[in-house]
């Protein structure tokens, strides 16, 4: 039986708005796939009530890591948790990035917007193990929104950065940077995680260029296990159009299955 478990926080790194927690969980570390997520309980009390869905950022031996932005009451409280404290987690959950087939010398592009960079580190390491060629695009509003740049580079990964205010790297949206770069070298596969508007642009580019793309979607989740039907997005899957549960179908969804909302257009 799957169970929510109490795990110990083995390390914490903090930036202004971002937090990285390492958790000791040999069980999850041995099973987790890039793109999967955890449901994390914020408090044993009733407020905030719901667990928070947070993607698995890295697997290192018996440890797993999560990386998140302090953006609401839940993640702010989670950011206060310290080394040696226990955390109640449920996972790994959901379907990750498609890594079947031969990636050897395949050109892959990973695009992370803000906190959306989180699952791409785990993915990049898996793709590196498969001998893929990897370019990572990492965009933020300002230079403070790119805390993981060095971590990627320390792992020998090439990172292309952009900021909307021009305080670091390419000035503008990461999707514009990516769009200009792929003209020089066309990727075979695209993987992305970030805000819906960013993902929508990537889906459009991928469709135009006819490049398979997989997008990790974010959604408010009640349970993460398919029971509440709260996390739905509009998909067209096997000829059926409707509201699909992101926790069950995703969070990683092929770009050509997603039907974008008006506000993302």
């Amino acid at each position: 039986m799957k169970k929510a478990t109490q795990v110990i926080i083995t390390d914490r790194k903090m930036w202004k708005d971002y937090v990285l927690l390492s958790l000791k969980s040999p069980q999850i570390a041995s099973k987790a796939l890039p793109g999967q997520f955890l449901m994390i309980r914020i408090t044993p009390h009733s407020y905030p009530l719901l667990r928070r869905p947070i993607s698995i950022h890295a697997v290192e031996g018996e440890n797993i890591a999560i990386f998140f932005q302090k953006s609401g009451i839940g993640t702010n409280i989670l950011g206060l948790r310290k080394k040696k404290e226990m955390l109640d987690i449920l996972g790994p959950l959901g379907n990750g990035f498609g890594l079947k087939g031969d990636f050897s010398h395949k050109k892959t592009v990973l695009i992370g917007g803000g906190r959306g960079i989180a699952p791409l580190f785990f993915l990049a390491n898996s793709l590196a193990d498969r001998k893929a060629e990897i370019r990572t695009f990492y965009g933020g509003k300002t230079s403070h929104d790119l805390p993981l740049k060095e971590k990627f580079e320390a792992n020998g990964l090439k990172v292309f950065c952009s900021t909307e205010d021009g305080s670091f790297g390419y000035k503008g949206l990461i999707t514009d940077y990516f769009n200009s770069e792929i003209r020089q070298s066309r990727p075979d596969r695209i993987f992305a995680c970030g805000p819906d508007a960013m993902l929508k642009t990537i889906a459009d580019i991928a469709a135009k260029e006819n490049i398979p793309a997989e997008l990790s979607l974010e959604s408010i989740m009640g349970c993460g296990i398919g029971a509440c039907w709260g996390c739905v997005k509009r998909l067209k899957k096997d000829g059926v159009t409707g509201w699909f549960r992101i926790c069950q179908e995703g969070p990683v969804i092929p770009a050509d299955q997603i039907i974008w909302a008006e506000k993302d257009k």
Partner: protein
Amino acid sequence: MTDLSIDLGFMKLKNPVIAASGTFGYGIEFTPFIDLNNLGGFVVKGLYYSPREGNPPPRLVETPSGLINAIGLQGIGVKRFSEEILPRLIDYNTSIIINVCGEHEDEYAAVVDLLNHQPGIAAYELNISCPNVKKDGKCPALDPKTTYSVVKLIKKSSTRPVITKLSPNVTDITEIAFSAQEAGTDAVSLVNSFLAMAIDPNTRKPRLTNIFGGLSGPAIKPIALRMVYQVACRLKIPVIGMGGIFNGGDALEFLIAGARAVEIGTANFIDPEATVKIIDELDNFCRERKIGKLETIIGTMK
């Protein structure tokens, strides 16, 4: 060994803990986490005759110790349920209860007619109280006459016991409950969620696309408990209590107030094992106090 079994008259439960509709999927979603055989029963997600698309997201908003949902009863419809899901459930040794929905009275009847021919179902829970299907929160359970009418109709065609699920969004819930009893329902379950809303002050937009949703979770427990107590005092038929039950202590409050069984809802989202943990806690409570039969505690508020 404590005897946790409960006799509702029309149905025996191995214990009073039932997973509530809309929080437990179709049951099978929970098989990776708990053994369904341990439950008193579970109520599957509300079924209409036809598949239903549900509301556009956002469908959920968290509030202090609560959750407002406006799922809109998205579902696969009773035909697909009977063909694809029910056969996977009927071998479980627990009471399977089907939450029956309808746009109008004929649809409730059509769902029940179809399910009457299916094996393995212990009872129907008549959902006349979902607050987030119609834009203004309207549902039959807001009025004693419409409550009476739907219950009477379904009791005529049902081959199984009928539990009527009541709405708390009324002036006097005992009046609606009495109406359901007069129409012949075998039991009532209460409460469904409270009609509620939330606004984002920055955008001035409602947090839910549907504007209104149903509030559940610990925030509603004291009000739900009061309503269960009032209804249990007035009715002759069994009352199934629910509303923000998160642990054994919460469940005991409802039983002591007069509920003969309890449903566990929102707690399933936070801990998929919530139901079985509550059963263990009820067992421990009885053992520590040398209570041989849990049923003896029902309606014993001093």
